[in-house]
């Protein structure tokens, strides 16, 4: 696909020259920011059009932008170094932001934790962090039970797989990712207990070449439904579809990348979450310091089912979705062991979606082909 890069064009040149003239006559263009209203800052670790993690947050920011009395400022590609500290301080000092959404996990410790005491009047809403008692109270951490979305992906994958082998391209073997892999397989096994899921870790959150290699390797191994957990799923989706496999999306809606092959996807619904949080602040209320939510709370949503999805898959998908919406759903039910044979849950035991133990998961369940180290 050719990039739609704007080249020299008379109108652009003219508007630019006009802008230059205007700026020159008016002097320093004073940006009337934060005049009375609330200024909200969003910071992304990658590009905001990555078809993935950052795009999901940027879509949330776009919804906030549409609210009355709110100014949104955004920065993308901000590293988890002194960069993010400076970006946050710059938004506070130069833009007058009083509500910040630093959206990458790695911003939390030490950057947000160390900056928050310096600006007690600013609210730091951090995605994916684990706020605990004793941390500054102007920090809030929030996240969603998106593992349930991968479980639903797995159900559709279980119906659509002919080879009974499904694949997962993963970034790093950390709890959030492991929970998604395990949920994807357990969803598929709810359809057919003989299904296995092969996982390949790329080692990085965004590494297009390895993501493509991993996807091709999964296709070579016979996996015919593939999903992923990397920052930008675009490469995995396009490569898998190009190899003829079905795809399940993640983070954001990737239907447009391969409409024939896209089954469904586990998406963040930050638009609802962010507008809700901003409204709370506008109304003078307080947001909880530790907020989690799932499908029923509108934190996550599923992409519309693709045209290839069979009726049987559709029926079980809808039924399970209704169960999850009712609350208290457990993807991990005993008896269950890890893929190295260590027992996790005995018969009758279960880990429901809200269980905090899931946020420190360090194993792959039986049926997943792959290793955490």
């Amino acid at each position, binding site marked *: 696909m050719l990039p739609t890069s704007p080249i020299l064009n008379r109108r652009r040149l003219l508007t*630019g020259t006009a*802008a230059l003239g205007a700026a020159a006559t008016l002097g320093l263009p004073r940006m009337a920011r934060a005049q009375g209203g609330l200024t909200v800052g969003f910071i992304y670790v990658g590009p905001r059009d990555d078809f993935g993690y950052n795009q999901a947050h940027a879509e949330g920011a776009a919804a906030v932008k549409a609210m009355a009395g709110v100014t949104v400022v955004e920065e993308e590609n901000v590293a988890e170094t*002194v960069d993010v*500290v*400076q970006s946050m301080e710059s938004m506070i000092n130069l833009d007058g932001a009083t509500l910040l959404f630093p959206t990458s996990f790695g911003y939390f410790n030490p950057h947000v934790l160390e900056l928050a005491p310096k600006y007690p009047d600013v609210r730091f809403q951090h995605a994916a962090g684990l706020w605990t008692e004793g941390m500054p109270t102007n920090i809030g951490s929030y996240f969603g039970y998106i593992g349930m979305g991968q479980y639903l992906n797995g159900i559709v994958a279980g119906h659509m797989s002919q080879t009974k082998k499904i694949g997962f391209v993963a970034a*790093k073997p950390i709890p959030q990712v492991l929970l998604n892999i395990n949920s994807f397989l357990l969803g598929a096994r709810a359809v057919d207990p003989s299904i296995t899921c092969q996982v390949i870790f790329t080692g990085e959150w965004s590494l297009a070449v390895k993501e493509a290699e991993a996807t091709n390797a999964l296709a070579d191994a016979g996996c015919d439904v593939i999903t992923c957990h990397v920052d930008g799923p675009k490469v995995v989706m396009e490569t898998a579809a190009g190899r003829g496999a079905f795809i399940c999306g993640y983070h954001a809606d990737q239907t447009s990348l391969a409409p024939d092959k896209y089954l469904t996807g586990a998406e963040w619904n930050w638009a609802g979450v962010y507008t809700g949080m901003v409204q709370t602040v506008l109304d003078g209320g307080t947001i909880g310091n530790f907020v989690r939510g799932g499908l029923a709370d509108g934190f996550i949503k599923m992409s519309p089912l693709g045209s290839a999805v069979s009726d049987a898959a559709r029926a079980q998908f809808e039924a399970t979705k209704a169960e999850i919406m009712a609350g208290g759903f457990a993807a991990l039910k005993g008896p269950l062991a890890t893929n190295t044979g260590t027992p996790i849950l005995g018969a009758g035991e279960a880990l429901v979606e809200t269980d905090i133990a899931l946020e420190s998961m360090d194993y792959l369940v039986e049926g997943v082909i792959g290793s955490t180290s």
Partner: protein
Amino acid sequence: MEDQALIGPAGGALLPVLARRAEPVVIPLLALLVGFAAFSLFLLTQGKSPVQFFQLVWTGGFGSAFSWQNTLSRAAPLLFAALCVALPARLGLVVIGGEGAIVLGGVAAGALGVALIGAPAVVALPVMATGAMLVGAVWIGLAGGLRHYRGVNETISSLLLAYIAIALMNHLVEGPLRDPTSLNKPSTATLPPELRVGTIPGFEVHWGLAVGVVCCVLAWVLIDRTTWGFAARIAGGNVRAAQVQGLPVGRLILGFCALAGAFAGLAGMFEVTAVLGSANGSLVAGYGYTGILIAFLARHNPLVIIPVAILLAGFQASSGLIQRRMDLPDATVLVLQGFVFIAILMSEALYGRLKPFVPEKWSR
């Protein structure tokens, strides 16, 4: 050039001396302006105002106490990274893998810090710094050794070594050195507050900046005021001539590469102790690559590295403001840096060719 011109007019006159001195200052400044002008044209094609752009660069990078704090905290690692390029460059070596030494220096500092928890900071911090410098020295020294003993191109080998360094860092912080409580971002254990390097009193900038400036001055003394530096410059000018003179070219290469790596390792140590609090993937921040640009802009003069690093840090500090106010992508500042880099490289061809700076040509 004619023989007469080589001999030149009487050397004592003030004006010709000034003209020669002005050349290395004026030409880079001109190149900088040409780069800015070319970038302004580029902005005009995008329908954006260059005036607003440069005003925002000023506001975001240099216009207030806060902007200076922002700029200087970004400059600290760049000083070390640029030294890692500039020192070998005086020997004619193009080392571009400083990133690897920074990353491994950071891991060494993080690991030593964890091992030294409980020890007084006056002991622990120097040990961490020394460890980081040693690891960095070995890493870039490897590239120098491959060059000297095996004839391997140091540009390629140092770049490849940087990839190996990053893979090694990932292995260590996700494996043997991982703090089990670092769940979603594998890291070494967090350093206790007494092992964290604080800020310079009166500034909100960590000590890495001051140490970086001192290192730049020391590097300048080494290159311009010692026989070692003189020997290195001879070898950089003409290896054959240096060898014929009996200069220890091999030892110079190894020594300068190791020293360059040691400086980069120190950058990693300050990242861990002053910014990150533990060694993890955030060490891979691209400072090593920005350092290449700075060293070339400074023409490998360690003293000039200081203002150039601050200038580039100021560009980066203003990048966020430019994104927010002008709705331009974050790559905009990279495009600006690219224009400036190309202008400076092209300006290299102007030395000795501009009449006002070459007194020998005045009479003609």
